[in-house]
């Protein structure tokens, strides 16, 4: 992948930056400029706002890869999963920190920041999200997103009131 193309995608790959329809509340990842499903289809134009996914979700389905894509030879066998996020969108991502035989449908996972691939020994290193098991982790405290897109809740104003 070209450097420029990957660089353009960093808001999505680094921070799960999607979009949300302010008319019907549907969340999209990757972000959309128009809400294709809601009744306000035309009215949603210009009314989609940036929305950051929390990274929490569960395995919807998965497959174990034995013939790796280039750059993944060190990780074989590895699991690629469809993860249904708590906000709705289904993402494709690698599941790490768990043996393939222990991955199952319904497994609670959380996005983790990992190296996706390297452009050879001298090239750029690409980073982005993968998923790690979150079964034994407490839930994210309410009102505390991971921060990045828009003004996060639970920041200064909330603290002052607390």
């Amino acid at each position, binding site marked *: 992948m070209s450097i420029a193309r990957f660089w353009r995608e*960093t808001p999505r790959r*680094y*921070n799960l930056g999607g979009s949300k329809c302010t008319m019907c509340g549907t969340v999209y990842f990757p972000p959309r400029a128009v809400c294709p499903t809601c009744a306000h289809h035309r009215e949603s134009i210009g009314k989609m706002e940036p929305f*950051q996914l929390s990274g929490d979700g569960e395995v919807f389905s998965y497959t174990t890869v034995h013939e790796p894509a280039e750059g993944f030879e*060190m*990780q074989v066998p590895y699991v690629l999963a469809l993860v249904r996020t708590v906000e709705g969108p289904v993402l494709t991502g690698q599941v*790490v*920190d768990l043996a393939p035989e222990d991955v199952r449908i319904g497994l609670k996972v959380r996005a*983790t*920041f*990992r*190296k*996706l691939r390297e452009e*050879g*020994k001298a090239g750029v*290193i690409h*980073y982005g999200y*993968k998923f790690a098991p979150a079964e034994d*982790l*407490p839930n*994210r*405290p309410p*009102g*505390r997103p*991971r*921060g*990045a*897109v828009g*003004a*996060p809740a*639970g*920041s*200064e104003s*909330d*603290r002052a009131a607390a």
Partner: protein
Amino acid sequence: MDAGIVSYGAYVPRYRITPAEIGRVWGADGEGMGQSLNVVRKSVPAPDEDTITISTEALRVALVRGAIDPQQIGAIYVGSESHPYAVKPTATVVAQAVGATPNLTAADFEFACKAGTAAIQTCLGLVGAGMAKYGVAIGSDTSQGAPGDALEYSASAGGAAFVIGRDHVIARVERTLSYTTDTPDFWRREGQRYPSHSGRFTGEPAYFRHETECARRIMEAAGTTPKEYRHVVFHQPNGKFPQRVGKQLGFTEDQMRYGLVTPYIGNTYSGAALIGLANVLDHAGPNERILVVGYGSGAGSDAFDLTTTDAIAEFDRSYGRPVQSYLDSGVELSYGVYAKYRGKIHMGGS
């Protein structure tokens, strides 16, 4: 000083290897090596982990725990001796990945194992001068020892992130003091894959002299004695050195209990003293005094005299894993898989 730690987070990769397994491959008494170093196992990063990913994970935990708006961060400094790039900062990737860009300053620090504590001092200066609301200091490494070298039994991976600020401080920094000299105990020349060290010389004139001098000088400046500290954290290149330096200075095992993490995860270099401090903060209540003395080869020590505040009682640590869970858990690897993960196997090609 009215600045201090507002929030913190630590991260240690999942894989482990034992000294016995390393010794088995090199025909050495690995178990004996582990006992003499007081290292039971060390952490190993997965093939898709490096200083950038470890730093990001640790900082994300810190930001959620402290409910900190990343846009309020004025500086991010990442201290490491294993930055993935020789040229291109770690700190910018971390800043982007936590949503702190673009209104901040960022830089990478390098000073063997004390780059993270140097970053804390810089943040204290910035925050204290009112130039930044929050400063972030991270100490993180995926350190390597040459195959078969003594360092291989302890060099591991992990990191911790500290958010420095003036509001909602959970541990106030009473003072900080450094002790720096030119001491050639450990180095890595440009382009070299593994570091070199001067064997026993890394002990007395290097680690012990700097740790004890720095600790004594900060206690002298503060007018304190070891008795006044509930916890003490030393740099921990292995599990034995910090125990010995603690004894030399008059600290008890109870004071060192939470600050010593290397026996279970190995030497995380820039992360070592900071993960120890994170473990102390995981267990500390209000009004507990903490002495931290980091050390970096080459050489220097940074000391911090901290006191926890009432705010630590309400501090929500529930997000992310406590340090103890990293000490207790992990998946053990064979030397073969470890060598593969650490890029020690020549795969051919360029």
